[in-house]
């Protein structure tokens, strides 16, 4: 990623980036909304100022320098502009037709005319004028009632400015508020239970990104996972992680018939890693904060779409219940894919939070419970695949449990909020976990188990209480780590 060095911190979309440091209720795209409320040329302001053109008559005015982006078409000598001064057409009333000497004169007080002084009132109220200008304005206020009135108003307005308190909303508030609403008026189109962790996790991550400046967006992040039972990692940036989430969530989007966020970019394989790689490579610039909006739009579109198509999928009825999301090397039923994406969203949000040194909490208990449940459901299949590949021990003695019959099982006990117990059949994905055939018992904290399944801790290091068949425990922990991927 050598582009990263060529474009270290410059974000093309972010010329006014400093304003984004403020707490904002919503994106700057809404900034122009109050247009028309205030009559005094407010609408013009939004348009003119956005264009950075200065609006009025730049280049013809004797300002202390031409606007950098728009040199005068005919570079008139300064003196002659000042001579002609007044007759220039279309002077807005905030304009500045008077000649002005940029060099402050030490002795003689500045003499400026009413229009110039009026135009200075805002700067004056903010104490952002030169001492000479300040003195000239203040002298004028004694003589001019209109300016004095405005000056008072503007001064009072300054008193209303205060630093934005950076108050982070409690992420748990979202769930409480939504829950309260839905109890008062039950939804006709609910968000399926298996999609709500994704809804919650994407909202949490988006809130984390809210106040990020360029430094955070380009902070280095190391993605870590297990491959062939060895820890692997890949370097990217915060924006690169969001691009990764965008492209992999895109697998679900495509399965649902939504637009592929990859657009024209072709991946050589339809796997999460290949798609991410292709997306990263296809861009001339490293990803920037600009990736946030498409990522967030897609997350909302996914939740909305599964609510419409997948509501009945819970019970296995309905078309969506059968809908599978292909990941290239394997596929997951839609509801498991949404849990998988929720899990990935949380894991990578934690990667991002680590990279920028923000605190980040685990998901709510009920969401975590669903995510652990997904891992527990996947383990038997992964175990049998690993066994076929020679990566896990063959079942001892009697084997081949008939489908639907109880088989040798490992009890997975997850502690803490969102915890529970799962019986993992060891010898066949088709077997049923059975307490009578329990051969081992592993106990872990929920977040620790998820870190294991995310490939962030190795099976050897995972703080797990273990009783029983050593080989079975080792196989299950390795299989859990092998669930991780880029």
């Amino acid at each position, binding site marked *: 990623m050598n582009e990263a060095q060529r474009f270290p911190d410059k974000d093309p979309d972010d010329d006014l980036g400093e304003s984004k440091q403020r707490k904002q209720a919503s994106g700057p795209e809404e900034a122009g909304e109050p247009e028309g409320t205030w009559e005094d040329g407010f609408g013009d302001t939004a348009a003119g100022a956005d264009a950075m053109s200065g609006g009025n008559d730049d280049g013809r005015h004797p300002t202390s320098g031409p606007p950098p982006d728009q040199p005068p078409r005919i570079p008139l000598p300064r003196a002659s502009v000042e001579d002609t001064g007044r007759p220039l057409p279309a002077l807005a009333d905030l304009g500045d037709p008077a000649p002005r000497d940029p060099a402050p004169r030490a002795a003689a007080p500045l003499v400026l005319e009413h229009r110039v002084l009026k135009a200075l009132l*805002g700067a004056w109220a903010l104490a952002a004028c030169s001492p000479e200008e300040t003195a000239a304005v203040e002298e004028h206020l004694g003589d001019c009632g209109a300016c004095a009135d405005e000056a008072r108003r503007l001064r009072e307005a300054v008193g*209303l400015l205060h630093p934005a308190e950076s108050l982070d909303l409690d992420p748990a508030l979202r769930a409480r508020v939504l829950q309260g609403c839905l109890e008062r008026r039950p939804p006709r189109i609910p968000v399926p239970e298996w999609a709500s962790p994704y809804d919650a996790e994407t909202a949490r991550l988006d809130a984390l990104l809210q106040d990020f400046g360029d430094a955070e967006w380009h902070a280095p992040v190391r993605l870590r996972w297990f491959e062939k039972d060895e820890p692997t990692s890949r370097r990217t940036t915060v924006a690169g992680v969001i691009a990764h989430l965008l492209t992999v969530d895109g697998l679900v989007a495509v399965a649902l018939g939504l637009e592929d966020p990859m657009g024209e970019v072709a991946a050589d394989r339809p796997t999460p890693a290949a798609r991410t790689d292709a997306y990263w490579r296809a861009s001339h610039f490293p990803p920037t904060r600009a990736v946030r909006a498409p990522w967030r739009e897609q997350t909302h579109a996914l939740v909305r779409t599964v609510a419409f198509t997948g509501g009945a999928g819970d019970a296995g009825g309905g078309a969506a219940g059968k809908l599978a999301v292909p990941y290239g090397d394997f596929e997951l039923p839609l509801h498991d894919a949404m849990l998988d994406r929720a899990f990935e969203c949380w894991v990578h949000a934690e990667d991002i939070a680590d990279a920028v040194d923000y605190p980040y909490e685990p998901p709510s208990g009920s969401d975590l419970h669903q995510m652990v449940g997904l891992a527990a459901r996947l383990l038997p299949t992964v175990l049998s695949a690993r066994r076929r590949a020679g990566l896990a021990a063959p079942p001892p003695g009697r084997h081949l449990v008939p489908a639907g019959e109880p088989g040798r099982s490992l009890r997975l006990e997850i502690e803490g909020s969102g915890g529970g117990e799962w019986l993992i059949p060891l010898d066949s994905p088709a077997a049923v976990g059975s307490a009578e055939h329990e051969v081992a018992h592993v106990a872990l904290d929920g977040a620790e188990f998820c870190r294991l399944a995310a490939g962030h801790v190795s099976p050897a290091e995972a703080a797990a209480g273990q009783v029983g068949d050593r080989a079975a425990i080792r196989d299950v922990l390795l299989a859990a780590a092998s669930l991780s991927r880029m």
Partner: protein
Amino acid sequence: MAKKDAPPRWDRKMQQRLARGEAAALGELYDRFASLVHGLAHTVLGDERAADHVTRDVFAHVWEHPDGYDPKQGPLRSWVATLTHRLAVQRLRATETAALARDGGQGSSEELERKVRHASVAARADYIVQSMPVPLRAALELAYFQRRDYRQTAADLGVTEDEARRRLRLGLQLLSTAHDAGAAPGAPPGYGGAA
């Protein structure tokens, strides 16, 4: 960054989806407006828990009465802001009145009204700052918070000095309208867009 759903289309669609009873729309509504709502409520009430309550009430109201919003009257955002203001001031009144009663009638209702008016102006001012065009806000930010004079502000923003002065004056003019609606308690106008 091209926005597919710039208001007011977004507003109208959101209203339809809420009316249809789409829980996913409620989530999106929250994601877009929660920090606005909570921030305004917090400015009025000065208390985290109370602001949480108002946030809950505002979203519940919108969810239960999506038809109360009329897109012709202005953006959804200003409707939500006005609603927040009303509920927050109601709550402030109730809390303060209860406090007055508890403390044995000390303090006058004038004082209460002054407090309410002050909180209303502060909340409107915050809303105006958040909603003003980004170039104006950026100019105020530099001149006020970073203590740049208007020439430095102009240089920082890459605009002429004329333009910098114009933005500072216009920004403050907008902000000063926060005082205007203060006289009419109960009806909190000033959340732009209803022109």
